[in-house]
């Protein structure tokens, strides 16, 4: 027989800390670092025991808590030398907790509004619009079609670069979001369009990788209306 332990899943370290503080019926401003650190670490152990993934942020918070704790252990005179006018070591954490709490409450209110809104129904988009889109034949493009299309786009970039400064300006994550943004108002776009007037190779590569990832996640579908023709990207409706 399998016993399932139901554990509240926390959104993050701040969420967990707020929970621990509330559980003890303590005001956030009266946070007791020694107790809270202990409880926090206990909780991390428990999560590990249950084989839950512990996100890195939880560990960073553990380190922060222990850092604050160690600073509070210093006798007052030494503390003053060390940090001049930084004040109470807990202040920064408390400020963050209060700020997080504000938005958590706001999120709760949004949830109520969402619930109320779900009781009201408007007309659904007519089926006529949706039907019109499916009338042209095409077949699914494969990875090689994509890569050859990509190399075509890449070859358009001038090789004339005087010096190259590597800036970490683009990430695949970011480009994924950009692509999705591109599809917000439309349901399809040409492959070439995505690269628009990009001049930066790194940006293009990130965009391409982002595209592959979106296809893998079944957010987009690739179609080629004719052999060796332009590749068309089609947004897949999320269910």
């Amino acid at each position: 027989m399998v016993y399932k332990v139901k554990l509240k899943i926390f959104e993050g370290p701040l969420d967990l800390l707020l929970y621990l503080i509330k559980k003890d019926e303590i005001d956030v401003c009266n946070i007791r670092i020694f107790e809270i650190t202990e409880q926090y670490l206990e909780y991390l152990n428990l999560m590990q025991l249950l084989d839950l993934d512990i996100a890195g942020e939880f560990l960073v918070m553990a380190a922060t808590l222990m850092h604050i704790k160690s600073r509070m252990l210093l006798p007052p005179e030494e503390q003053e030398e060390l940090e001049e006018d930084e004040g109470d070591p807990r202040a920064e954490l408390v400020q963050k907790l209060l700020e997080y709490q504000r938005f958590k409450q706001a999120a709760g209110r949004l949830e109520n509004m969402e619930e109320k809104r779900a009781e009201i129904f408007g007309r659904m988009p007519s089926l006529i619009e949706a039907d019109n889109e499916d009338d042209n034949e095409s077949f699914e493009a494969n990875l090689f079609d994509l890569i050859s299309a990509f190399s075509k786009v890449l070859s358009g970039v001038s090789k004339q670069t005087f010096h190259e400064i590597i800036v970490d300006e683009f990430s695949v994550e970011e480009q994924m979001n950009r692509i999705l943004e591109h599809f917000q108002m439309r349901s399809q776009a040409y492959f070439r369009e995505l690269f628009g007037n990009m001049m930066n190779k790194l940006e293009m590569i990130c965009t391409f990788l982002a595209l592959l990832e979106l296809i893998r996640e079944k957010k987009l579908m690739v179609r080629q209306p004719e052999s060796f023709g332009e590749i068309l990207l089609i947004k897949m409706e999320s269910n």
Partner: protein
Amino acid sequence: MELSEAKRITEALLFSSSNPLSLDQIKEVIEEIRPSQIKVLIDELNVEYDQTGRSFRIIEIAGGYQSCTRPEYAIWVKRLYKKRRGQKLSMPALETLAIIGYRQPATKGDIEFIRGVNVDGVLRTLLEKGLVKIKGRKEGIGRPIIYVTTRRFLEYFGLTSLSELPELEKANVAGSKIELGSEEVKQEPAEMNLEGGIKE
């Protein structure tokens, strides 16, 4: 044109539309009428609906008007469209939306600073649902992407405009002293299990 005719046309437009219609959109169709007159006609329609006990009425939402069923009939409508309204938003999604909603334009960094966790995944979900959009890049170091909420966001939460968002609790103004309770310093440090928290 008779106003009573304009009223029926307005009703027909609202009846046919799956999106909220703004007064200007309705005016564009009817032409010989002022937007403020349309507003009056909509109010009259609602009075008619109330008096005759209709199961729907015209609501003001996302900067426009839409003909919608009354909440009392939700349980029935839901039976018909079992899959109509998908899943509700998750807590991380709501928290992220709250931050963007109140702080917009907001960067990923702004959100992560407040929530204390990575928000890449959540942001993507919100973009996909069309609840937020990219507005551009912020000037300054790294030129981070900035996010704002969309019209769809207003529709989703039944808001007329952003100013209708319930007020955020008062902030502790940054820099102001927070009164912290004193804490007794224990002589012996509590036992810590550092290794426990880190998995190889």
